[in-house]
Each structure stands twice: as structure tokens, then as C-alpha cells.
């Protein structure tokens, strides 16, 4: 299997504190890879490094064989690697349709044409609507995104991300703040979109991780503790120790 995303010796220091220490990570194409670990393990920092929202102190990152260590986050997205956010990331004052359309609009390249009417964008309306239909938001097309419930905002976020048709998705705690019912629905959705894509996700919900992931990397204190499928990782004494240890802190 070929490699989608690879990090070598990834390190991030904040004023003397080492948040991520020499992490080597390989995400293979077409797999669901989970990054787990107790609080403060450096998962989110690691995630932000991989998506270039943070610049690493040392180490290199390659995506699809290309060195992306020095790239801007917007350019990573243009290569087909799109991230989500922990808190629902919608554009609250835009309509639901406009939220998705902003993603589709990327296909025009840059939109610096301030002299053209926004009617120019209506050619994306049907496609945006199709993406909304797919996540069950058909009847909310012309509502402000801010008016949607939490679960629907997350659905809108997914529709927006899928509109870019990314090859690789990085999901930052996709189940955060969700009730049982929404977790089940989102799990299904992730499984569906993973069919022809690579997914790396940070997730707290171990049941979800066990269900979905092909491979799990466990982080603790900024370093890799264990790696493998759920059965292997869950039996590792270091992992058990780290989780119970963190519980007593």
C-alpha cells in the first residue's frame, strides 16, 4: 500500500516545553488512522503541525510524496488534504447553501473578481444543493447557518468539506459534544466517505476509534507509545498504564 501522509522526527517546542517529540507517523492511502492519547498528550498539536496551522521546530512532513514542511495551510488544502475543526466550523452569517458554495467556488481558482456579480456563483447552486441533500439538510438551504442546531452544523461542515472532494481528510475530534444518536450517524458517514479516501482523525471516544480505525497511534507526553490495530494497542501495558495514570492526575 502506498503512503499518503508521512511525518519524520516531528517536534514542536513552546518556549522550552516539548509538546511533540520526534514523532514518526505514516498514514497509508485508503485507511482510517486514529490518533489517540490522554489529555495533554500532544494530539492537537500534532494535528495542527500536520495541517500546517503550526510550524514544526524540527522534522519533516510529506504528503503524496511531496515535501510540505514549509507550505502554507491554504496550499495544503489545494493539494487535496482538508482538515476539520473541533468546534463546528461553519460560516454563521452565510446561508447554508452559501456555506457549501464557498467550497465549490474554490474551483474557479482565486476569486479576486470584485467587479462581477455574485450571480456568477449560481452555477454552483445545484451541486451545493446535492451536497446538502446528501447530509439531510435539504430543507434548510436558505437559513442562516447560525440558526442550525449543533448536530446540523456538523453535518453542514461535512457537506462543505466533501464539496472540495479531498483525497485526504483530517478530522479533529469529529464526535466532540455529540449525543449517542449523532455519534452513530457520524460514524456511518465517516465510513461512507472513507471508501475512496484517506482519513486521519483525533478522537476521544474509544468505542468509535475501535469501530472505525484500521490503525491506531497512541500518543503520551508528546511521544508515540504504541501503534497498531485496536486489539494490539488495547493490550499494550504502556497504553493501559498511560490511560489509568492520566485518570489519577
Amino acid at each position, binding site marked *: 500500500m502506498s503512503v499518503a501522509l508521512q511525518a519524520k522526527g516531528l517536534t514542536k517546542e513552546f518556549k522550552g516545553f516539548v509538546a511533540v517529540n520526534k514523532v514518526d507517523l505514516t498514514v497509508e492511502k485508503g485507511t482510517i488512522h486514529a490518533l489517540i492519547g490522554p489529555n495533554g498528550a500532544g494530539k492537537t498539536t500534532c494535528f495542527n503541525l500536520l495541517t500546517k496551522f503550526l510550524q514544526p521546530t524540527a522534522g519533516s512532513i510529506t504528503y503524496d510524496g511531496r515535501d510540505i514542511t514549509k507550505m502554507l495551510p491554504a496550499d495544503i488544502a489545494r493539494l487535496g488534504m482538508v482538515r476539520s475543526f473541533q468546534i463546528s466550523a461553519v460560516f454563521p452569517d452565510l446561508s447554508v447553501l452559501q456555506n457549501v458554495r464557498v467550497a465549490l467556488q474554490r474551483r474557479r481558482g482565486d476569486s479576486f473578481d470584485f467587479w462581477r456579480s455574485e450571480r456568477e*456563483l449560481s452555477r454552483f447552486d445545484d451541486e451545493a444543493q446535492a451536497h446538502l441533500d446528501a447530509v439531510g439538510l435539504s430543507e434548510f438551504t436558505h*437559513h442562516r447557518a447560525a440558526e442550525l442546531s449543533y448536530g446540523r452544523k456538523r453535518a453542514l461542515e461535512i457537506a462543505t468539506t466533501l464539496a472540495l472532494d479531498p483525497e485526504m481528510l483530517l478530522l479533529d475530534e469529529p464526535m466532540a459534544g455529540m449525543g449517542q444518536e449523532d455519534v452513530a450517524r457520524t460514524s456511518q458517514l465517516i465510513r461512507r466517505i472513507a471508501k475512496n479516501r484517506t482519513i486521519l482523525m483525533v478522537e476521544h471516544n474509544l468505542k468509535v476509534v475501535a469501530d472505525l480505525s484500521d490503525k491506531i497511534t497512541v500518543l503520551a507526553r508528546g511521544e508515540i507509545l504504541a501503534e497498531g490495530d485496536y486489539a494490539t494497542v488495547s493490550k499494550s501495558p504502556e497504553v493501559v498504564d498511560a490511560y489509568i495514570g492520566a485518570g489519577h492526575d
Partner: protein
Amino acid sequence: MSATDTQPAPELHRPATQGMPMLHKAIFAALLVVLAVLPILVYPVFAMKVMCFALFAAAFNLLLGFGGLLSFGHAAYFGGASYVAAHASKVWGWSPELSILVGTLAAGILGLAIGALAIRRQGIYFAMVTLAFAQMVYFFALQAEFTGGEDGIQSVPRGSLFGLFPVDENEALYYLVLAITFGGILLLYRIVHSPFGQVLKAIRENEPRAVSLGYRVNRYKLTVFVLSATLAGLAGATKSQVFQLASLTDVHWSMSGEVVLMTLLGGVGTVFGPLLGATIVVTMQNYLASMGAWVTVIQGVIFVLGVLLFREGIIGVLSKWLKRPL
């Protein structure tokens, strides 16, 4: 998903395919009619002053209301353009349209230089950087030879439009100013409702998300900064032709503050708010001028009341009542 919000909410967003909504068309048409007959009712120079400041506030609103960037140095572009335009008319003897054009372009170039540095900072730091550069422009205007120091550039000739139509008379100049400012405001409307405007709103609403969708946000911020500075310059250059004067008042930091006041009072991020805000502030300054320093006090009181009672500005509140964007 939860069933708590299934009742249909008011549809605040029209489908983009419809173009400018009827309400906005009607308001623009009514404005045009009123402005066309206004010189019969009020002193034309006063009306021209209002229009120039309305364009200035609308240009500022593009940056604050749609770019989400608070510049505290917009006097630099407004005043800078008025100096360049006044100089072109008086020293080079250029016709008004060319003077206004060169003043506007100068403001755009100044905006590009300052904006490129300022957009690297965010929030209050962005405001401080823009203020610092605007103060540099002020001291330049105070010290340089061609700006006339404390006196500014006075008795600027109005000349003839395209060298053919004299605009010495206030009535003639009025319609030129009307065409320029109204055109500028319509252009601003278009910018907000363009593919560019759409990305701009997305960045204002959620910048990290816009980045993750692949938008290089700094380029959009710089573009909107330059557009705003250019149109503020158009207002300033036009004003210099109206008053036949470029003075330190136009580049002073208090002018940067006044445009913030106008925009907030009328309603930031609305189409018509800045126009109303500018009208109120200029009218107040004009009719209360006899009260001297008290004008500032009254302005302050109005601003405080405005913030307390109409946090979203007069038009902003009205827009909420009517459940329509204005």
C-alpha cells in the same frame, strides 16, 4: 438530528440568482431622486460635503463590516488623496477629473504599501499599525514643502471637466460630485455582492475555516484594504475639489475617528448605514458649528447613546425589525 429547531426560521437569505433585491433598488432610486433635487432645498456645498463623507464612510465600512478589519488610519487615504488632487489642480493645472483620478490612485498605492505591512497583525495591533502609518502621513503633510504646512493647499481652481465644461458654479459641480459618489457607492455594493465579496464574508465569519478550504486569506485582506483605501481616496480627492482646499484636518487622526463614528452610528456591515451615519454627523457639525467646542461633546454623547441603545447602528436595528438586510 434533534427536533428542537424544525420550525421554519425567517429566511434572511435570498437565493443569489435574483441579483439586487427590489428593496435595495427602490432605496437607491429614491436616494437618487432626492439627491437630484437637493440643491434646490439646501446649500449645494453642504450637500456635496455630505455625499463625500457618505462615500468615505461606505469605503471604510467595506473594510470593517465585510473584511472584519478595523483601520484607525483611514484619514491617511482620504486626506492624502485630497492633497494630491489639490496639488494636481493648482500646481499642474489639471482638469478636475484627472486630479481626482490621480488623487484616488495615490490613495490606492498608499493603501497597498501600508496594508501589506498592517495585515500581518490582527485585532488591536492591526489598528495600531494603521494609526501609526496615518500619523506618519500627517507629519509628512505638516512638514513637506508642497503641502503648505499649517495652511494646507488653498484656493484650488475648479477648472473645467474634461477641459470643456466649467464646474466653477456649485450647481454644475454638484452633479459631478453626485455622479462620482453615487457611482462609488454602487461599486462598493457590487464588491460586497461579488464572488470576491463572498470569500471576504467567509473570512470574516471564520478565518481558519476559510484557510482550510484553501483560500490564501492574506491576499483577500490586502485586496479589500486597497479597495477601501482607494475609494476613501476617491471621496477625499472629490472633497478637495468641492472646498478648493486640502488641509491638515483631512489627514488628522480625528478624521480617522470620525469615519469610525459615522459607520458605527449608521450600522457597520449594512449597505445604507454608513450613508445615514455620515449624513447625521456632517449635519450635526454643520448646524451646531456655532456652539464651538460643544460639538465634540454632543458628538460624544450621541456616540455613547448610539452604542447603548442601537448597538448595531440605526440601520442595523431597523434591518432586524424588518427582518431584511439593509
